[in-house]
């Protein structure tokens, strides 16, 4: 009885003004937060555009290096895509294996710990990856790169001459590989574990070995998640700044040679290197290149998200 009266009193009190005003204010606040976020995103595009415009309209002589904006950004965009491509090509098979190992092969007891290790890989700041790349991986890669030049030098990628410091596109790409591995494997793993039990057990019941079961059920089921994970990883790799800034020795060339001392720079690394000492139109030029990077990563991510949402509907 007691509770009924309480509820009745509450109802009576609640139908008063406090309820309406409180609800209205609170729901408006939450809508305002949502709108703020959309405005923020629009602001990112808008303010970059405003600050990039002076560089777009300026004549070539007034821009850094006396080049037109397109000539300035194109080699950087090339380097950006090259480094990111190396990373994705190396990271995807590795990430699929990591995801499969955690979802289907490792004993269930250690799955949590393994997941934590992969997450840790994602949590390490990029500046630390950069330092590790230049002081540890780079020097360690000099020998193998000389070997690549000697044995596979006929392939343009390994033409050489091999760098003596390890500050090459290949090493930068390897560090990016490690950095995007967690995101690619996380996306793949999330879907791998959702493979319908019926399919998996059906395959095993038909006498398939574990690998055959994975090949026939898990991988086809997770195919689009591998693709979307790869796209998300590509987006990360395109925008990654500090590791590339520190590792790569740049000379502005356009070359597919992955192991030499002269490499194309990337958009992000170029901004990080030049921005602190730039002023005037040079700043606008760098922001224009940032806008290009924003556009490239945006398209990449949109494609990834489109694949993910299509797969969710199915």
């Amino acid at each position, binding site marked *: 009885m007691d509770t009924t009266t309480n509820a009745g009193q509450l109802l009576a009190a609640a139908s008063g003004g406090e309820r309406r005003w409180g*609800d209205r204010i609170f*729901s408006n606040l*939450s809508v305002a937060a949502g709108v703020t*976020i959309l405005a923020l995103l629009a602001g990112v595009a808008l303010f970059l555009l405003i600050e990039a415009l002076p560089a777009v309209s300026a004549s070539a002589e007034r821009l850094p290096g006396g080049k037109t904006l397109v000539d300035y950004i194109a080699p950087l965009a090339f380097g950006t895509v090259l480094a990111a491509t190396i990373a994705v090509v190396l990271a995807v098979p590795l990430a699929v294996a990591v995801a499969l190992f955690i979802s289907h092969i490792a004993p269930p007891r250690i799955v949590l710990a393994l997941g934590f290790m992969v997450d840790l890989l994602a949590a390490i700041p990029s500046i630390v990856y*950069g330092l590790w790349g230049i002081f540890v991986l780079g020097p360690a890669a000099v020998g193998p790169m000389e070997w690549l030049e000697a044995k596979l030098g006929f392939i343009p990628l390994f033409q050489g001459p091999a760098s003596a410091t390890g500050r090459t596109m290949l090493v930068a790409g390897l560090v990016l590989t490690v950095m995007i591995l967690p995101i690619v494997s996380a996306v793949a793993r999330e879907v791998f574990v959702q493979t319908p039990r019926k399919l998996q057990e059906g395959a095993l019941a038909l006498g398939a*070995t574990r690998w055959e079961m994975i090949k026939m059920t898990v991988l086809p089921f997770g195919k689009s998640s591998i693709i979307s994970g790869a796209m998300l990883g590509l987006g990360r790799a395109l*925008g990654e*700044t500090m590791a590339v800034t520190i590792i790569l020795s740049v000379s502005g060339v356009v070359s597919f040679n992955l192991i030499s001392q002269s490499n194309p720079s990337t958009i992000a690394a170029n901004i990080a290197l030049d921005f602190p000492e730039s002023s005037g139109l040079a700043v606008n030029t760098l922001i224009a290149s940032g806008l290009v990077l924003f556009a490239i990563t945006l398209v990449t991510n949109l494609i990834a998200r489109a694949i993910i949402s299509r797969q969710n509907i199915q």
Partner: protein
Amino acid sequence: MAAPQETPALFAAPTGGPVWRRRTVNRAMTVVIAGAFALAMLPLLSLLFEVAKRGIPGLSVEFFTESARGAIGGGGAAHAIVGTLVITGVAAAISVPIGIMAAIYLTEYGGKSRLRRALTFFVDVMTGIPSIVAGLFAFALFSLIFGPGIRLGVMGSVALSVLMIPIVIRSSEEVLKIVPNQLREASAALGTPKWRTITKVVLPTAFAGLITGVMIALARIIGETAPLLVTTGVVDSINSNPFDGRMQNLAVYAYSEYRTPGVMKEASYDRAWAAALTLIAIVMILNVVARLIYRRFKTEIR
């Protein structure tokens, strides 16, 4: 009794080939996958080992208590630590209320509205913004208002907020979703206004989970370098006012110690590694504590 005769055909169906070969392939692939996992973890182990080995020599009382002001090729990182705390603190003060309110909108008010769908979509897009672009945005915004060449701590906070908000929304949304609906219904049945239900029932239930999300987001942004390089600049002395001039932070400190080493190169590199070690320690502590809190939250909610 006809069925068993057909089983051999079914057994062979998966790939064909003799059983011994299929077993060998299975074993080989298991080894390959496990090996790939080990290969992928190798960099993590090497990195943690090297950072510990090279970072410890640079750690000293001086590193944590003194700035680099006036110290020729020496000094500590106190200014960077102060800067890191202030910049990340302000970023959190911006991101946490906006992020959690937006998550409340998504789970409690959004329904099937267009704003909700747009928000869900664009938050995903926002998680993909490169950190350097977030930095350029903050620079563009402030330089339009205060003129070019402006460098402030709060600019860095704004840049970091662009990176932090989507992470906070994502994690808060997940947590608010798993708050049992019975709690909301029970509260509503008592005639409680919706906003009181949210502030007195939903948020307290989800509190531990929300804290976890915020800590993970903090761990993600506290090591950012690129967006701060273009917004807060590099400086040698302690500055704790985010609205007054340049401000150093640990990641940028590590970068500048590496990039422009002092007279004693090795000492500078030692300090860069010490800063890297400090950063990793902070990130790991944040992650581990966040996980412990989350485990507690999950058992409480069940």
